[in-house]
């Protein structure tokens, strides 16, 4: 079948078909010497006087005539044809500015475009390749510390500021945009183990091995012009000396309380020199503490007895304890899902739990090859970043079993702390090599202001890539990462070990009475006990 589109205007039209008679809504025309065959459609685009002659209106029309009158061809007199008229107003087509794009009309009939899938597949492939080409995640490093960085804190109210504490007791405030140090907070005698900033971004709380909790005034955003009430940021607002060394500190979201972890969990008020509350459940050292940002009165701690403990401040009591096979180094609550938290475990995995059902992890995030040291959720709640002792930083989906991204550089050593920036665009890692590193959370994302068309294009690429991500070619390209040799080998080794274990277990099961060795999923396997 052919599709003929004919533009007929003026004299040409009358030459092609002599109009015999015009009525209202009907056309009588004689076709002259046109080569048609059966099943053809002719599109007539009638402009100007022809149109007006036929329809009596000075407008342009578009009509489609099925050519089912080949019997009478070649001299076909067409009478009483039904004419469908599409009338378009001029204001829709006039551009407001000369830079505006001309409106283009497509016929979206899928029969006209049979190759669309193939086209989109190729686009997906190209998008995946482009992603690889533009993947430059490392933005820059911030050096200046003279010992390993042990902890970091982001300012919840200010995007550019990040605090870092190091093992020599030094605390620094960095400006991410310029990647330079803004100021220092000297005072700690031993290693700084915990840093946190109040929600309003005014007060920095630090604690460390020297058994002190120090409160600092954060210099205002503009840098130089800070309030003159506290003229020197180098002097702490308050120093609270306590009985034991501290391992971690976290500030409550939108409240005055902060919690420290050490020999026990202490809840402090910012304005009091003594803790307002302290919890002790078991005698082991508490290693990390995190407040739930959604539910400000709920906090979780992990301790060296391999436990994760939940506390509720409203009833000023611990709530539940979960003991796993290995120690949990850090905990992060999902800021968008207040019931869920993820624990960074010593056994190279992260475990996402629902605080209401602790008998089973919701998801096990595997990929690291050494202990996971720190974890932080993206403010969107859809992904989190982990730093590991294996010298890499990985980004996981909140429900993904394997990492979406791995970041490493030759010079980055053991990563002790990681943070997601407040706008979910950057990732900051602090490592043993005394540097803070700034990464993009999406390796190939284009920074800076995007034009709407650019954005649309990138969205389309992303969507197409996402659609065809299951096909082998696209999958291969998207998944491919270059790994440092030690990590690659360690991963291979781990795989071998787990495979061997699984095989052994399978064989044992095969040789024992059916039902006597129930299969236990990994989500449950690593949990020893849930203590009430």
């Amino acid at each position, binding site marked *: 079948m052919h599709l003929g589109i004919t533009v007929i205007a003026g004299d040409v039209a009358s030459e092609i078909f002599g109009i015999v008679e015009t009525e209202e809504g009907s056309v009588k025309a004689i076709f002259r010497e046109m080569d048609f065959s059966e099943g053809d459609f002719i599109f007539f685009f009638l402009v100007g006087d022809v149109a007006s002659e036929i329809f009596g209106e000075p407008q342009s029309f578009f009509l489609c005539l099925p050519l089912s009158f080949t019997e009478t061809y070649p001299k076909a007199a067409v009478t009483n044809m039904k004419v469908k008229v599409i009338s378009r107003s001029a204001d829709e087509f006039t551009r407001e500015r000369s830079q505006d794009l001309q409106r283009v009309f497509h016929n979206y009939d899928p029969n006209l475009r049979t190759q669309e899938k193939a086209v989109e597949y190729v686009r997906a492939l190209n998008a995946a390749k482009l992603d690889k080409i533009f993947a430059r995640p490392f933005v820059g490093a911030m050096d200046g510390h003279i010992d390993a960085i042990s902890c970091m804190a982001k300012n919840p109210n200010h995007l550019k500021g990040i605090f870092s504490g190091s093992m020599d007791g030094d605390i620094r405030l960095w400006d991410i945009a310029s990647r330079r140090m803004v100021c220092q907070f000297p005072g700690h005698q031993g290693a700084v183990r915990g840093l946190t900033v109040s929600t309003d971004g005014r007060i920095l709380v630090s604690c460390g091995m020297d058994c002190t909790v120090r409160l600092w005034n954060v210099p205002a955003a503009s840098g130089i012009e800070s309030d003159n009430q506290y003229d020197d940021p180098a002097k702490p607002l308050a120093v609270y000396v306590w009985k034991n060394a501290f391992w971690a500190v976290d500030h409550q979201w939108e409240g005055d309380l902060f919690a420290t972890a050490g020999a026990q969990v202490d809840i402090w008020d910012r304005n009091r020199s003594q803790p307002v509350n302290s919890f002790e459940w078991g005698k082991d050292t508490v290693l990390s503490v995190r407040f739930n940002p959604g539910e400000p009165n709920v906090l979780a701690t992990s301790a060296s007895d391999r436990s994760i403990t939940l506390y*509720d401040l409203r009833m000023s009591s611990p709530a539940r304890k979960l003991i796993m096979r290995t120690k949990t180094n850090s905990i992060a609550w999902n800021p968008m899902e207040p019931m869920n938290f993820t624990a960074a475990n010593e056994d190279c995995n992260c475990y996402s739990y629902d605080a209401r059902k602790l008998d089973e992890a919701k998801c096990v995030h595997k990929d690291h090859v050494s202990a996971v040291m720190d974890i932080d959720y993206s*403010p969107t709640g859809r992904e989190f970043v982990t730093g590991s002792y294996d010298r890499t930083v990985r980004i996981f989906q909140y429900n993904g079993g394997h990492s979406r991204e791995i970041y490493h550089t030759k010079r980055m050593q053991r990563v002790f702390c990681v943070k997601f920036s407040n706008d979910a665009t950057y990732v900051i890692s602090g490592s043993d090599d005394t540097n803070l590193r700034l990464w993009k959370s999406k390796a190939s994302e284009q920074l800076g202001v995007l034009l709407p068309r650019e954005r649309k294009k990138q969205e389309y690429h992303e969507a197409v890539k996402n659609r065809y991500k299951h096909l082998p070619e696209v999958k291969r390209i998207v998944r491919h990462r270059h790994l440092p040799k030690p990590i690659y080998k360690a991963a291979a080794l781990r795989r071998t070990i787990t495979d061997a274990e699984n095989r052994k277990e399978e064989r044992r099961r095969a040789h024992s009475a059916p039902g006597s060795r129930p299969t236990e999923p990994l989500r449950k396997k690593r949990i020893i006990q849930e203590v009430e």
Partner: protein
Amino acid sequence: MAEKKRRMKEETQQRQGGSGKNRKLLQSKTLTVEKKKGKKKHNSRNEGKAGRRKTGPRLPSALKHELDSRNSNQRTSDEEVDNDVYEYEESMPEEESKKNRRFDPVDKLEYELPDEFEDENLPSEDDDDDYEDNDSGERSKGRDNSNQLDDEVEDDDDRRHARMLQGITGIPSEAFEDKKRKRNAVLSEAHPESEYNPSRGAIDGDGNISVEDLLEGIQGKSGYSKVRKRVHRVDRKSMSVLAPLPKVDRERLERKAVYEQSKKEITKWEPLVKKHREAPTLFFNEDIDIGFSTVGAIASEFEPKTDFEKKIASLVQDAKVMEAHNNDGSRLLELNKISVEDVKDRQKRLAKMRSLLFRHEMKAKHVKKIKSKMYHRLMKKDRLKAASARMEMDPEAAKEQAMKQEFKRAEERMTLKHKNSSKWAKRILKRGLPSQDEGTRAAISDQLHQHALLTRKMNSAKDSSSSEGSSDEEDEDDNELLLSSDQDRASKFLTKVKEKTLELMEDAEQPKSGVLSMPFMVNADKKRKDAAYRDAELALRECESMVEQLDDTTEAENPKIGTSSGRRVFGAARNDTQALSNKKSNNIRDNNDSEDDLEANANIDDGQDNVSLLRKDVQIDPGSLYEDSGVSLQPVSKSFDDIIKDPGPKTTFEVSIFASDSWRKMKKGEKVDGKNDNSSAVVEPGLPRQELKEVDEDTDTDSEEEMVDGILSSGAKPSYELPSQADLIHRAFAGDNVEEDFEKDKLEILNEENPELEKPVLVPGWGQWTHIQQKKGLPPWMLEEHENGKKKREEALKKRKDARLKHVIISEKIDKKAEKLHTKTLPYPYTSREVFEQSIRMPIGPEFNPATSVGALNRPEVVKKPGVIIRPIKFEEVNPYEKAEEHKKSGRAPKTKSSKSRGEKATKMQLKKKS
């Protein structure tokens, strides 16, 4: 929660206090009773229990005995004294023991056996309480058991005692029992029965003093019934009071409660989280205040920094000016004063500039008006000189010049301005060049020359067009052929063919260099050429015969001859060729085939016979026939036309038509590239055997069936005998050996999928000068490789799924290109193939979707803006029913987005109102 906790505490306190009091009271009662009973031998059922209850420090038994003895003497008189003594005993230990009950009552049961105690104890409520609070049925059962045991032991004792008495005294034991009973009942009471003096029944009954007993005292008085009722009610609803738990347990319980509570608190987020999870897109860029939004706002922030800016600012910000602005325009005018000198200065400057301009203008006009050609020529020369000098001097100018030149050329190529395309040129050409005067002709030729100059480079680059041109000519010739009458065309065509063949035969040139000039290539070429030459000769001969035939045949005969199909007649032609070329093809049925065809040729004129013959003819497997023809015809066709260029099938067809003399078909055959089907499209109305012909020339698949028909019909005509079934079948499938065909097909497919290895050939160039390859044969590694390859192939063939299945072909061919478009397994979130395929069915690109829906289709899962702080989730009420609808709509995003945000705002407002 806190409340609950407090309540718990209170309860425990109550329990402690209340129970203590209770116990004290009851204990005192029991003690009084005890004291009254004295040392009497008893058979109370509750002895064990009572014994157990006695804990804490007590009086030494010796002292007790003495007390008892004294009590028996002055039982009635001094109760107070006794009470005093017992006060000590009961209060302290009781308090202490009840205060922190560290031990389970069960343990006590084991520790302190009831046998030690001879004194009787009344059952107290406390005991029951304790057991109840322990709440373990086992324990209570154990207690019962122990009681029963005790009872039995006592009974036994009594019986033994009675027997002993009987043995000693000879009086029947009943007498003693009676006596004992009597003794039990003996009570000397000085006081009347009242609440202070327990009744007889109370003492010799179960030993309990119930409230009823106490109530008896006030019986008959006013309000008695009310009190009694209340007592009854209290009895019915007796509450047990719990004992405090150890700290560990208490804390555990507390934690449990806390956890439950916090669980409940957290669960309130569930609908909201669910909504977020189910939403196709999360928006984090709403409600942002970026700061400056209007020009005014930005301008107001402006601060002058440089000197100039400051100066301006000082002028603009001048208080007077500002005031004037605010007040009135007239004041502004006053402020706007200019000195006279300034104005004069400016005017002078302007006048000077104007006069200069004027002069320049005048000069230009003058120069333009000069008509002297000489002057202009000189000027032009100067200009050119200057230009050339500049070109030489600086490369920039040269480049520019070159660019200009190139641009001109390109322009010329684009517009063809000088190729007589202008209106003027056209007009002149229309009128005819010769009629023009010389100047015009010169101008035209000049123009053409210019065109040639400008496009020279282009022409020089194009040198391969000559061959195309010739081919075009050929095409034109062909067209001419078509247009002329049939006969003419035929003869013309034939002559043309002849010429072509001859030409081809003649110009067998040898390549002078390259691989083709190598000896083996030359040999091969020669061979090929020989064959081609032979074929060409053949074709020529045929051609000539055709021409003769053409001359002979009349118009009337023409259609009849035309009826024989191309293929069949072609077979006849091929017959000749085969005879000449010593049977190149190895087809088995060649002879059969050719015979038939010969017959067909012979009987070409008579009608009825021809039918059967033709039908017989059809018996030949059309596929093989066709193949056959393809093989043997190729050289012929090659000779007819350009050997290299023409595609196989087309030439085949041409030849077939040619051989069958039906010139009508020429037109159609050349137009369409198809194979035999096309000839059926020709309508020849006067033909008697048209149908037959069409059947004959049908597609391969159809023809088999037809063939069967043909056989049957032909076999049915002579004297009819009923053949056996097997015979019938055998006959029916006589012509086609399906099995063989199938095997052949299978072999072909096998070869295609696991291709047979090529035999190792001599390595060109290797050791050629020493002829080492000829001497030693192929290198061993090559042979080994070949062997390995063979083995591999064998194994692969054995491994095939259809290796054992004789009648089956299972293709194992994997289309690599198609495979990359398939997933190996079903991807994770999808549960069925259909769903997955459905999910990628519709395209999402802007070319395939209207602009209104593209945005929604491509929207990412998370929409955020870099540089905008994302806050943690805030609680809001979510209506689950509303959400479902929203979710449905989510395809159309921008609308729903706004509505959603509006909805959120509304909920927020509600929350505010609530708070």
